[in-house]
């Protein structure tokens, strides 16, 4: 053996084996239960929406990285697949295919590549795409198919309002909340996913299984979800105590809409969330607070997407000013 072939490099000489691919595929595994439930609840429509979103996101990632950034595309890292799944999770399962493709183009092109690709985008790409679609195609984006009788029937599913939409609508016509709550699905249905809504925001239970997996695998930490849900719970709880006829109870809020999906999978997006645990808590609390402000006082029934995007905007500022506790440095010292 000749020593001239010895590798020389500075320490450390071992690596944890942690990799971008592993982390991204871990997130995809965590998304699988929710995906399975939505396929079951919404049938073939959900499958098609998800497929189109994923394929078009990967396609745009490849094309734009190659010809716009002039870099070797790294589509195997799984990040574009995640964006695709999350975009699909945030739209109704009967959304026309061409709208999904536009959403993917905006998500990947505007949301990610225009900032320099993976790691450089300030806003969650899937949410950029979703909000763009919501503003551009408000009708298609808010006609929610109800759960199917038969999971494999394709078109012409009945549509209806989401539980949050039902309440917002009802309250604006002056109905008392206690009457409206009779019309929304039971909490058990909310937990299991037997409700109308976006592809991925149906089953709370499936999302919880996913987040437990991510926490177990140390893909994410608890800080953002706990701060976000805790703030939302306390805020809605306070409002509910003040006037239960106008404000829904906190459990209803946690189980409906995209709160869990957002808290587990969107607000925790690595690239667009803060770098220190302290900032993560503030970030999560901010998202929870803004979400509820929009839900209770805004004109949209749901506000998770906007809340996350707004707080995304504060992340660079937080990273600059909120520092970890340095070893050997006293506070204010």
């Amino acid at each position, binding site marked *: 053996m000749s*020593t001239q072939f010895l590798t020389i490099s500075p320490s*450390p000489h*071992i690596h944890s084996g942690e990799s971008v691919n592993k982390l991204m595929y871990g997130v995809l595994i965590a998304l699988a239960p929710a995906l399975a439930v939505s396929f079951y609840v919404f049938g073939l429509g959900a499958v098609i929406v998800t497929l189109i979103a994923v394929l078009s996101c990967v396609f745009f990632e490849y094309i734009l990285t190659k010809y716009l950034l002039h870099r070797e595309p790294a589509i195997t890292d799984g990040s574009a697949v995640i964006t695709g799944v999350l975009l699909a999770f945030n739209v109704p399962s009967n959304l026309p295919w061409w709208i999904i493709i536009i959403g993917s183009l905006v998500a990947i092109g505007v949301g990610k590549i225009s900032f320099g690709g993976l790691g450089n985008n300030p806003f969650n790409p899937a949410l950029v795409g979703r909000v763009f679609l919501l503003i551009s195609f408000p009708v298609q984006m808010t006609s929610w198919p109800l759960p199917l009788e038969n999971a494999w029937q394709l078109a012409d599913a009945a549509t209806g309002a989401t539980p949050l939409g039902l309440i917002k609508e009802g309250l604006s016509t002056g109905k008392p909340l206690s009457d409206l709550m009779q019309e929304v699905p039971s909490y058990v249905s909310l937990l299991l996913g037997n409700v109308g809504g976006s592809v991925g925001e149906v089953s709370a239970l499936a999302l919880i299984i996913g987040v437990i997996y991510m926490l177990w695998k140390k893909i994410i930490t608890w800080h953002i979800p706990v701060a976000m849900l805790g703030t939302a719970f306390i805020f809605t709880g306070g409002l509910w105590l003040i006037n239960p006829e106008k404000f829904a109870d906190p459990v209803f809020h946690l189980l409906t809409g995209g709160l869990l999906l957002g808290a587990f999978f969107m607000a925790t997006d690595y690239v667009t969330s803060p770098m220190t645990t302290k900032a993560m808590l503030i970030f999560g609390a901010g998202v929870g607070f803004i979400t509820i402000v929009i839900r209770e006082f805004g004109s949209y029934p749901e506000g998770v997407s906007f809340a996350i995007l707004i707080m995304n905007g504060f992340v660079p500022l937080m990273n600059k000013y909120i520092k970890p506790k*340095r070893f*050997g440095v006293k506070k204010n010292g």
Partner: protein
Amino acid sequence: MSLLTINNVKTFPKGGIHPADHKLSAGVPIKKLDPPAQVAIPLSQHIGAPATPVVEKREKVKVGQLIAKGNGFVSANIHATISGIVTKVDKVIDSTGYKRDAIIIKAGREGEEWADGIDLSDDLITEITLEREDIIKKIADAGIVGMGGATFPSHVKLSVPKGRTAEYLIINGVECEPYLTADHRLMLEKGAEIIVGARLLMRALGVEKAIIGIEKNKPDAIEKMAELTANEKGITVQPLKVQYPQGGEKQLIKAVLNREVPSGGLPIDVGVVVHNVGTAFAVYEAVQKNKPLVERVVTVTGKDVKNPSNFLVRIGTPVMQLIDAAGGIPEHTGKVVSGGPMMGKALNSLDVPVAKGTSGILLIPNEEAKRGEIKPCIRCTKCVQVCPMGLEPYLLMTLTQKEMYEEVEKEKTMDCIECGSCSFICPSDRPLLDYIRLGKRTVASLIRERNN
């Protein structure tokens, strides 16, 4: 004391990683290797100024004879490690990869001859007769440096600066680097000597309390040291959770005493001095047996090494001889590291001599020798989570790349202990520590300039 009674286990609270420990040679007793036919003894085996040779070419030397004198306060004496003839003072590649001055000694034909007054027997001498200053002087004379790998001259650490008082001595038996077992074996086989060494260090420092910190993955060492200290007043054993880099002084003090060495400060600022178990043993030999630092225990290990071993070897022995003694170099060896896998140095030659700070020789197979391809930072925050110093490695790397050194300094880059946890954990294989080192160097020279 049995395994089950290891309780009150402590650790440091912030950051840290858990690499697989691969302590392949933990069960292998220390084996004394025969003195080599030739040694190259570097003049710079310690932090501080290189020693100045005090022997001439062709001079006959005995083992333990002073051959180079410490140059100033922060420096260390160097002794002949075999008896024979000084052939030359030459440039020799050492573990830094550079050619640096070393004294070459060729063994004489007649048997080994030791310098006068050195007690080579195995008898344990527990009675301490010397006073504080004399102990420190003996330690300085013997050329003892931090044996854990830091190689800071020990007598300097024992000279407590004015205005500070030492309250605790911590004996570092953590050995948190994967693979290495030299300290572990030393505790098992020379525990009583280490305790006497600790007593000597306590007297030198004027402290009443000493704590031996050992990680839980060495239950036999914890048991052994606890047994030996059962009737020792003021010396206790502190079991520690397994967590890298607990062997770092600052992390160890935090774990054991919950005291935080201030940023830019020294352990003595919180009343603590830390010495490695290997150092304590060397101190015992120097003071009680009059034996200077001429040999040390080196772990030779690696996944494909035939007989992972712990050798007692003379300083100046070429690394290759140790590897041969462990069964030779495995095929497909891609990297040879002096020290542990987290903080050791990759060697560019196998003729590099064993130095005072050589705790291990690690042979890494080809497929693990190269780093992964660098990918963009995805801001997963793992480097921030694992940094035991509360720094933001991702940020330090970016700022250094952009040459924004003022910010680099403000973000406390000088506090980095170079443990490598950030590079170890990074899913994008980013060379975080490489850049942080670069930044530290530049900032250090900027600070020097400013102070001049």
